[in-house]
C-alpha cells in the first residue's frame, strides 16, 4: 500500500471513529441524520451518474447537467399540477398522475439533453478541449435563463403528492421517518440497478463502454460513435429527470439556480467515487449525502460546503482514482 493510500485510509478511519462516538453517545440523533443523509445522497447519486457517464465517454465536465436536473423539477411540477386531481393529497387519481408524469418528464429531459449535445457539443468534438467546456457553461446559463424567464427568481411550489401525514410517517425508535424517505432511496436504488443492468448486459451499453475506452477502435469495430454518445446523454438525462422529479416531490420547493450547487455536489460525488465509474458515482453520491448531513448536524451547516470541497481536494490528492480505484484511460 502506497503512502497516499495509507493517509487516505487513516483519515477515513478517523472520520469513522468520530462518527462512531456520536452514534454511541447520541444514537437517536445519529440515526435521524443518517435518514436525512441517505435520502439526500440518493438524489445526489442520480445526478452524479449523468456526470460520470458523460465524463467517461467524452471527457467533458457537463456543467449543464445540474440545470437539466432542475429543469426536470420545473417541468415535472408543471405537468403534475396539470394532471393531478387535487392539491397536496395522496389519492388514486394522483398516483396515476405521478406514474404518468414520471416517464414523460424523464423522456422530455432525455430529448433536451440530446438536443444540447447535438447543438453545443458535437460540432466541437475536434475543437480545442476548452471550447465544449465553455458551451457547457453557456448551456447551463441558457437553461437557468429559461427557468428564470418561466417563473422568475421566486421559489416554485411542487405539489406534495407522495403519501405523507399521519399513517405514512412517524417515529420508529425515536427516529422520525416517512414514506418519502423510503421512497427516495428505493426509487434511486431501482434506477441505478436498471442502469447497471443496461450498461452491462445490453448491446448499446457494451458500445458505450467500448467508446469510453477507445473511441477510434470502437469506430473501427462498426460502432456508431455519434449515436452512442447521444444515447449516453439521453440516459444520463433520464436519471437526472427522475432525480429532479424526486427532489421536487421530496422537498416541494425548487428555485431556478438549484442545479448549480446540486450539480457541483453531484460532480464531487462522481469524482469521489472515481470519475467514469458508474457504481462509484452511485456510492459517491450516497457518501457525499451522508457527509453533508453529518456535517450539517455536527459541525454546522455553514461549514458543509468547506467540508465537502475539502474532502474533494483530499481525495484527489491522496487517492486520485477515487474510492472505487478504477482508472479512466488517459486519452
Amino acid at each position, binding site marked *: 500500500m502506497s503512502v497516499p493510500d495509507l493517509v487516505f485510509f487513516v483519515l477515513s478511519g478517523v472520520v469513522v471513529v468520530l462518527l462512531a462516538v456520536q452514534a454511541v453517545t447520541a444514537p437517536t440523533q445519529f440515526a435521524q441524520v443518517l435518514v436525512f443523509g441517505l435520502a439526500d445522497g440518493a438524489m445526489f447519486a442520480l445526478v452524479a451518474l449523468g456526470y460520470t457517464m458523460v465524463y467517461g465517454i467524452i*471527457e467533458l*465536465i457537463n456543467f449543464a447537467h445540474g440545470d437539466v436536473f432542475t429543469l426536470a423539477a420545473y417541468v415535472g411540477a408543471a405537468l403534475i399540477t396539470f394532471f393531478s386531481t387535487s392539491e397536496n393529497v395522496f389519492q388514486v387519481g394522483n398516483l396515476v398522475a405521478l406514474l404518468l408524469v414520471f416517464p414523460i418528464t424523464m423522456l422530455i429531459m432525455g430529448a433536451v439533453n440530446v438536443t444540447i449535445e447535438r*447543438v*453545443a457539443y458535437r*460540432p*466541437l468534438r*475536434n*475543437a*480545442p478541449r*476548452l*471550447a465544449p*467546456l*465553455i*458551451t457547457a*457553461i*453557456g*448551456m*447551463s*446559463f*441558457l*437553461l*437557468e*435563463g*429559461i427557468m*428564470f*424567464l418561466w417563473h*422568475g427568481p421566486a421559489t416554485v411550489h411542487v405539489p406534495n403528492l407522495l403519501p405523507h401525514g399521519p399513517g405514512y410517517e412517524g417515529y420508529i425508535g425515536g427516529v422520525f421517518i416517512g414514506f418519502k424517505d423510503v421512497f427516495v432511496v428505493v426509487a434511486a436504488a431501482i434506477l441505478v440497478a436498471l442502469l447497471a443492468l443496461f450498461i452491462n448486459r445490453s448491446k448499446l451499453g457494451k458500445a458505450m463502454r467500448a467508446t469510453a475506452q477507445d473511441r477510434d477502435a470502437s469506430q473501427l469495430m462498426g460502432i456508431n460513435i455519434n449515436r452512442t454518445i447521444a444515447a449516453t446523454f439521453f440516459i444520463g438525462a433520464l436519471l437526472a429527470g427522475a432525480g429532479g422529479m424526486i427532489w421536487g416531490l421530496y422537498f416541494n420547493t425548487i428555485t431556478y439556480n438549484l442545479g*448549480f450547487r446540486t450539480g*457541483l455536489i453531484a*460532480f*464531487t460525488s462522481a*469524482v469521489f467515487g472515481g470519475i467514469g465509474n458508474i457504481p462509484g458515482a452511485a456510492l459517491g453520491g450516497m457518501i457525499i449525502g451522508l457527509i453533508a448531513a453529518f456535517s450539517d448536524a455536527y459541525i454546522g451547516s*455553514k*461549514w458543509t*460546503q*468547506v467540508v465537502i*470541497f*475539502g474532502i*474533494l*481536494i483530499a481525495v*484527489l*490528492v491522496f487517492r*486520485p482514482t477515487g474510492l472505487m480505484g478504477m482508472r479512466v484511460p*488517459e486519452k
Partner: protein
Amino acid sequence: MSAANAVKKPMGLRLRERIKDRDTAIYGVLLIVALVWPMATIYATDSTFLVAQAGHAGTFVLLAIGLNVVVGFAGLLDLGYAAFFAIGAYCYALFASNQLASSPIHHQFHLPFWLMLFVGMVVAAVFGAVLGFPTLRLRGDYLAIVTLGFGEIVPQLFLNFEQWTGGINAIGNIDQPTLPVWITGPWAGNPIIEAVPKFSFAYDPVAYYVLVVILVIVAVILVTNLHRSRLGRAWMAIREDEVAAAAMGINTVTTKLLAFAIGASFSGFAGAYYGASLGIVSPDSFLFVVSVTVLVMVVLGGMGNISGVIIGALVIYFVLNNFLPALPPNVTALASAVGLGSLNEQSGEWPGLAGVAQRLQFLLYGVILVAMMLLRPQGIFPSRIREQELKSQTVVEEETVVEQTHA
C-alpha cells in the same frame, strides 16, 4: 520577421510591416483608445462614470492576462481563479483598514498600497504553489476539479471567519493609495495642467484608471517576455504533449507549478487593486461565476494570445455590464416607439416587457457564449501558432477522409 531583415529595410517599410502584424495593430489601437478614453468620455458625458467603469474592466483584463498564463500557455484548466483574486483583495483589505482592530488581535494595520500590491501578488503565488504542488502531478482534468473545489472553499472561509473578516458585512473603508506627486490636466476635467503634491487617490476614477492602464501595460510586457522565454517555450511544450516535453528534459512539475503560481500572482495583483478601487471587499464578489467569467474571457478572446485575451475580456465585460443591463429600458423604449406600449404594463402573470427583458439576461448570456464558441471555437483572435496548428490538423483530417473514400 527576423531581426536581420528588419535592419536592412527602410524605416517606413518596417513601420508598415509592423502595422500589418495583427497583434501590434491591436496593441496600437488599444493604447490610443486607452489614452483618449478619459478625455473623450468626460467631454461627451460630463461625468467620470465611464472612466470608473473602464477602471473596473481593467481588473478583469488583469485577471484574464493572468489566467491566460495558466490556461493559454501551460494548458492547465483552472476553475477556481477567483480564489486567488479573493486572497489578493483580502490581503490588502485586512492590512489596510480598521478591520483587524475588531479582530482577536485588536491591532489595526495601515500598510501602504504600493507595498501591498506586491505582497498580495506574493501571497497569491504562494497559495497557488501550495495548492498546485500536490495536485499538479495529477492528470489535467483533476487539476480543474481541485481548483474548482478551492474556488468554492476560499470565499466560504472568508465568509465564515467573521471575527477576522467581518463575514457577510464585508470589509469597508479600505485605505486609498497615496503618491507624493500627481499630474492633473484637461484629461481629468481640470482646465489646466498642474502638479498635485501629496496626492491621495480618494476614489478618484481618473487616477484609478491611469493606475490600471499602467498595471495592464506592465503585465502585458511581463507576460509577453515570459511567453518568449525558455520557460514560455517549456509551457507550450507541456501544453502540446506532456510526455514528449518530459522526454526532452523539461521538469514538468516545476514548470507547471511556475505557470500556476505566476498566474495566481497576477490575480493577487488584480485583487489588491480591486480592493483599493472599490474601497470594499465582500466574500460574494469572488464566487464561481467570477472564475467562469474570466475563463470565458480567455477562451473567447483566443487562448494563449495576449492581445486576443484583452479583447475577449473587454467584450465580455461590455456584454455583462453594459449590453445586458441596458436591455430592459431599451426594450421598453422600443415598444413605446412602435406602439406596443401596453406590453410594458405589468398585469397578472405577465411581468411587463422590462421584466421579461430583465429575466432574459441570463438566457441571452448563455446564447451568446454558445453561439460565439460555435462560430469561432478557437476564439476571436487565436494565437498565430495555434491557428496554424488547427489549420494543419484539418488538412490532415481531410486527407484521411479522402483516403477512406478511395479505399
